């Protein structure tokens, strides 16, 4: 609220209800901070237990992940590799497709077309991820198998493709917002100099909206890293280093699902490993979310 606060509570005349109500609402807002603290405490506490048995260095540099089957080994790198394969693969789809979609919607499309296409694409973001997992198994993998018959039921390619489709609307929507915010004076200036529509799009609008576009990429990648059900169903549960997209892999999130659906007893090393992997995942997505916020805040004021 703007202006001078002339309310009775501000001038000390307010009733007791007012004071109580204020604290109740504050408690609600404080709960969000408590959630963050809770996440950090829970992840750290579980990880500390885990790192009593496994050395931090061994965890971060080990190249074999076999927490449940002898000989046991707790190197997280195969899971990180699996996550990276999915993230990079989905980025290869979502970034070009999402950016080109945003350019079309912002620079070329008729407002009527835009007002239909944008919400339709956003439906993609609202579909539960478990449905994408099913789609990968029942449609995408069979299509890949037609071309490459040696492809397994679970393969990294299908996982990357569905995650890519899933994050397209994130890239296209946020990038389109950024391009839409570029003032028309810049476009008109370029047209006045004889630029074509293509030149205005690529040489004026994209550079001007670069920070917003970049922020949308980082945010979409962060979403791909944390994606769980689609990659569990599509890419499998085989923690391994492979450069072949036709082979199964396991992401960090898929490992957590594997433990979640198995009967691992509380306090066992398998249970504790959940939190160590969870912490790794949380730190990766947190740093990307912060990077995205930083990119946007750094350039936000440029055209206002």
């Amino acid at each position, binding site marked *: 609220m703007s202006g001078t606060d002339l309310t009775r509570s501000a001038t000390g005349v307010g009733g007791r209800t007012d004071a109580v109500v204020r604290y109740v609402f504050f408690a*609600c807002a404080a*709960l969000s901070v408590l959630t963050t603290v809770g996440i950090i405490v829970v992840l750290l506490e579980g990880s500390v237990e885990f790192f009593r048995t496994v050395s931090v260095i061994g965890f971060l540099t080990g190249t074999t992940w076999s927490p449940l089957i002898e000989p046991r080994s707790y190197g997280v790198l195969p899971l990180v590799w699996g996550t990276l394969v999915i993230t990079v693969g989905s980025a290869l789809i979502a970034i070009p497709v999402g950016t080109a979609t945003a350019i079309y919607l912002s620079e070329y499309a008729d407002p009527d077309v835009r007002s239909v296409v944008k919400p339709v*694409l956003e439906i993609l973001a609202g579909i539960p991820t478990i449905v994408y997992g099913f789609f990968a198994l029942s449609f995408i993998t069979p299509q890949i198998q037609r071309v490459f018959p040696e492809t397994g039921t679970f393969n990294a390619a299908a996982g990357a493709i569905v995650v890519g489709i899933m994050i*397209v609307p994130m890239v296209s929507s946020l990038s389109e917002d950024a391009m839409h915010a570029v003032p028309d004076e810049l476009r008109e200036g370029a047209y006045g100099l004889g630029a074509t529509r293509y030149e205005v799009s690529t040489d004026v609008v994209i550079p001007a909206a670069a920070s917003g576009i970049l922020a949308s990429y980082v945010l979409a990648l962060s979403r791909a890293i944390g994606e769980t059900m689609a990659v569990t169903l599509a890419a499998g549960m085989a923690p391994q280093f492979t450069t072949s997209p036709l082979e199964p892999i396991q992401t960090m999130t898929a490992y957590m699902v594997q433990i979640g659906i198995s009967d691992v007893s509380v306090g066992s090393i398998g249970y504790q490993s959940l939190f160590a992997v969870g912490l790794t995942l949380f730190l990766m997505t947190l740093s990307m979310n912060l990077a995205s916020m930083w990119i946007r805040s750094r350039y936000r004021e440029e055209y206002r």
Partner: protein
Amino acid sequence: MSTTNPFADVSDLDRKRTIGRVFVGLCIASTMVGIVALVTLLADVAYESWGWLSVEFLTYPPSRFPENYLPGGRGAGIYPALVGSVFLIALTALFTVSIGVGAAIYLEEYAPESRLTSLIEANIANLAGVPSIVYGLLGLAVFVRFAGMGQSLLAGALTLTLLILPIVIVAAQESLRAVPDSQREAAYGVGATKWEVIRDVVLPAALPGVMTGTILSLSRAIGETAPILMVGAATSMFVAPDSLLGPFAAMPMQIFDWAKLPQAEFQHVAAAGIVVLLTVLLAMNAVAIYIRYRFEADLS
């Protein structure tokens, strides 16, 4: 390009036009990728579920034998998970509306412009980007273990509440912000206290927006699998959940369970489950859009 006169070189202009056309073509093709993917996905689900969706599917518990799901079989379906999801969402709605609106009121109406306030706001933005499976771990450690709720409906609902709270708070803040200050000032002018202004003026005006935002967030919660999986949603429950602290099944978890079974028939069963889930989602979105439409019509 060395020429200084842009009109001198006609062939250069032609070349530019060609590049421009190819570029638009690529952009339109990219836009079609998303639309075609959506249509293909929906068509695939519809095709796979064809013939496997019946009234019995909605009213019977799951079965280990795929032939039971077929029309004319002994009857098997998604009933406990459907009821479980409805309970889960009703509870989550109760918690998120009260806490989310409370937090939004504090941030919009009370919060001073302090570092604590900006910390809370930045924190909310950050929470929205935390992967849902991490919320599952939080729920597992805090609600299931620490608070001793066990793998219960209540633990699942509280976990989903924390997950969608950031989205609900932001949506509620936007609706509160949209209430014109003149309305608040008019109420203060006739001697209302701050709480009276919020209760009788601001909240009623912001209610449709708050409800729309909440329903949309809940439609995200109903499709979430990872958090309730970590909290321990049951995969094969044969009766509907009947108590807050009892075990529960939920639709996305049940679909996951079917989809990972090796028998090919269960792909059809999973598809039928997805049709039910998407129908519930669609209904929730339709309600949200209807409320928004009604509200906008009232305003103008």
